């Protein structure tokens, strides 16, 4: 009797059309196990069915790109035969349900994507978005997510070097937790996932498989509830200790020459890893589930295939090399089991207790997954906001103090002090600056890493917001003196079946692509997270960007702290006082309105290249890009970092003070410089430069206004700890 009713495939998230396609492919009805395999392989998460068409438009190539999107992580050349390997990935929904474990397993998953490719992870980053600070769940979510990220990263011994954290009511019911890992590998020892060589053995290593993370919806079927009185949790629990062992064991094995292909078991576990490996290599696979190490008794084929138990990997070994591999995994006390063999049939045959539990063609499942061209519309552009219509309810420094103590601009020290940002002993620049800088062990080189996105700009203008997100990461890398090389992205949006959301997605990709092209930072990896909504309310469009750059000499990196007293501080770039969508408008005037600030990519490029060159020559001695909150906020951050004040001598001229002080015009930096000729240098390069003041003292001074650093620091540092203390 057929079990395949519309209710069953709907519970598996498959549409009727998709089910018909399954019937076409198989020429028969799937059994329930096979249906489960289709459902995860064709899920939005694994198949990118709504986004694929648009992702293809992103620029992914450059001479220094060794491997772009399509593998577990992107790989770029960083010279001397070395490569940087990185990717960002979301764990939004699990982190909302169980913040500690959700965030922790997010870190675990992205670490595996990176060391799977043969890289030793050297840095973690994280992009966090929480609901409004006054929402009753926010505090608990912040506490859980931060300790989960720290709990995992600290234990595996990879420094967590930065990220971002902001609050907005649109995330009340749908927080964002995007984790990024960067690793270092030898450029000629990158490991890929394409399984080749019929007859080669397929090996399972890591933790045992339990019933973790099998989607709740699929539990409705009687077959899977008979042994469980208690609703099975869909939450996975992370085991960072096992992950640490897995990193060491895999890297030790990779130093030998026995691996044909390797892939972590991420979302959709054994299913997606085995199908992807087989499809990429054009082979078939015979898998024997009886050989899969199980944590629980009486697991069904369905459960084995869909389990999302953590800390597991699949590999294909060269013939006769099992013993070499087994010895290494035994040393590290990890499970090691031969679970299958490659074939030349092009089919995945899954056996359990002597019976065939599933028999599926590989390519049609992996490659012929649905692809949708979803309808999209562009929202009409918002009206602009004019500075004259925006109030300045108080002295500028009082407003500055308010902004510096607001949830988005306050110090995030409370977060990053819970992350071990020093382990491995290569941290050149700690969290708190524009970009993290981490030395490449045994070289003079360093990687600079940053993440960014300004969702309020993306909502007002997805194209501009997409450009801005890339431009800001590029600027952050530039500000420490690094040459930006490539980016990874994590595209967090609402329901793509709504044309206005799809319009945001399409616009953001266009903007990201344009910026990547002009700024020469290809996209080498990424992730898409859709359906981030509750009760029909979508999150702000949040295409988070993670960017990686290179410093050939880490001793040339600069920070944002003023390097001393009595130094001229220069503003580089043009100030128009753009208050639309600014934090000033939102925090001080309580309005979320206006156009996003325009991003002129050519100007970004010209100004940024100048700044980077002068950092490299040792002329610029400290640097901070101007972003959220505008000029005075950036200046205040430099002063606080140094504990050195500044007397401001410039002003807005024809601009009103608050527009000059807090406008969020793009392509700007604040710097100090050595030597007397800086202004002349900038003028020769046709880069706009203004001296805005001189460092010294223990306060910010502007005309008759004074704000002591102590007072400013208290506002800036206290908000988050006070908030978390409840």
């Amino acid at each position, binding site marked *: 009797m057929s079990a395949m009713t519309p209710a069953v495939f709907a519970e598996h998230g498959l549409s009727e059309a998709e089910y018909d396609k399954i019937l076409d492919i198989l020429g028969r009805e799937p059994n329930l196990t096979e249906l489960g395999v289709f459902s995860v392989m064709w899920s939005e998460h694994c198949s990118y069915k709504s986004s694929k068409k648009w992702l293809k438009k992103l620029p992914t190539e450059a001479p220094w790109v060794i491997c772009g999107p399509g593998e577990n992580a992107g790989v770029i050349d960083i010279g001397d035969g070395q490569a940087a390997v990185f990717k960002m990935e979301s764990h939004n929904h699990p982190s909302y*349900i169980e913040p500690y*474990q959700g965030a922790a397993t997010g870190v675990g998953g992205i670490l595996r994507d990176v060391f799977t490719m043969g890289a030793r992870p050297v840095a973690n980053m994280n992009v966090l978005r929480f609901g409004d600070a006054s929402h009753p769940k926010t505090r608990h979510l912040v506490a859980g997510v931060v300790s989960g990220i720290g709990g995992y990263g600290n234990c595996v011994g990879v420094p967590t070097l930065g990220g971002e954290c902001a609050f907005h009511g649109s995330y009340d019911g749908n927080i964002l937790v995007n984790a990024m890992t960067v690793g270092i590998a030898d450029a000629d020892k990158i490991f890929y996932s394409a399984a080749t060589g019929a007859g080669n053995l397929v090996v399972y290593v890591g933790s045992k498989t339990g019933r*973790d993370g099998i989607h709740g919806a699929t539990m409705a079927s009687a077959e899977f509830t008979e042994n469980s009185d*208690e609703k099975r949790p869909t*939450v996975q629990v992370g085991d960072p200790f096992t992950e640490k062992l897995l990193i060491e064991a895999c890297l030790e094995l990779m130093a030998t020459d026995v691996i044909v292909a390797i892939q972590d078991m991420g979302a959709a576990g054994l299913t997606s890893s085995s199908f992807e490996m087989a499809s990429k290599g054009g082979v078939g696979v015979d898998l024997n589930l009886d050989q899969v190490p199980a944590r629980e008794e009486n697991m069904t084929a369905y459960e084995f295939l869909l389990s999302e138990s953590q800390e597991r990997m699949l590999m294909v070994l060269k013939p006769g090399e099992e013993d070499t591999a087994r010895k290494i995994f035994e040393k590290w*006390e990890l499970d090691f089991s031969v679970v299958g063999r490659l074939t030349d049939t092009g089919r995945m045959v899954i056996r359990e207790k002597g019976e065939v539990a599933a028999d599926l063609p590989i390519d049609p499942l992996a490659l012929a997954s649905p692809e949708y061209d979803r309808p999209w519309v562009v929202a009409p552009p918002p009206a602009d906001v004019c500075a004259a219509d925006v109030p300045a309810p108080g002295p500028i420094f009082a407003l500055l103090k308010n902004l510096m103590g607001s949830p988005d601009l306050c110090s995030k020290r409370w977060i990053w002090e819970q992350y071990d940002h020093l382990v491995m002993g290569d941290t050149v620049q700690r969290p708190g600056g524009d970009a993290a800088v981490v030395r490449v062990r045994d070289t003079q080189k360093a990687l600079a890493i940053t993440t960014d996105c300004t969702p309020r700009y993306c909502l007002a203008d997805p194209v501009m917001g997409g450009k801005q997100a890339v431009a800001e990461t590029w600027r952050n890398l530039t500000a420490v003196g690094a040459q930006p090389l490539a980016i990874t992205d994590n595209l967090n949006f609402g329901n793509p079946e709504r044309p206005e959301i799809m319009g945001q997605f399409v616009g953001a990709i266009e903007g990201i692509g344009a910026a990547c092209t002009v700024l020469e930072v290809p996209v080498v990896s990424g992730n898409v997270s859709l359906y981030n909504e509750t009760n029909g309310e979508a999150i702000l469009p949040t295409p988070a960007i993670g960017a990686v750059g290179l410093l050939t000499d880490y001793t040339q990196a600069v920070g944002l702290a003023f390097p001393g007293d009595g130094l001229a501080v220069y503003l580089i770039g043009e100030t128009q006082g753009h208050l639309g969508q600014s934090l000033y408008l939102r925090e001080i005037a309580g309005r979320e309105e206006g156009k996003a600030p325009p991003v002129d990519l050519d100007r970004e490029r010209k100004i940024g290249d100048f700044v980077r060159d002068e950092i490299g020559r040792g002329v610029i001695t400290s640097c901070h890009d101007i972003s959220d909150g505008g000029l005075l906020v950036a200046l205040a951050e430099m002063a606080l970092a140094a504990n050195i004040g500044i007397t401001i001598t410039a002003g807005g001229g024809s601009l009103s003070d608050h527009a000059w002080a807090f406008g969020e015009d793009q392509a700007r930096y604040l710097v100090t410089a050595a030597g007397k000729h800086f202004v002349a240098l900038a003028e020769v390069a046709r880069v706009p430069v203004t001296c805005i003041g001189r460092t010294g003292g223990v306060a910010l001074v502007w005309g008759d206004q004074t704000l002591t650093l102590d007072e400013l620091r208290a506002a800036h540092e206290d908000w988050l700890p006070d908030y978390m203390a409840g």
Partner: protein
Amino acid sequence: MKAKIHVTLKNGVHDPQGQAIGHALESLGFDGVGDVRQGKYIEIDLVDSTEAAAQEKVAAMCRQLLANTVIENYIIEIDG
């Protein structure tokens, strides 16, 4: 009045700590060690007068704070 609360992982939820303890016991030479699970044990002094009131209050505490009911179960015992 004293509440004694046991918070344990639900069946099927991975317990890496328990597993590691089992492993360690084995390598110390203890034989015949099967499954090991680790949970929390919490004691709370209460000024409530009736057992019923205490029971109800502690159940609310468990739901709101002490246990994460997505992955954990709790058992409450009230000592008069």
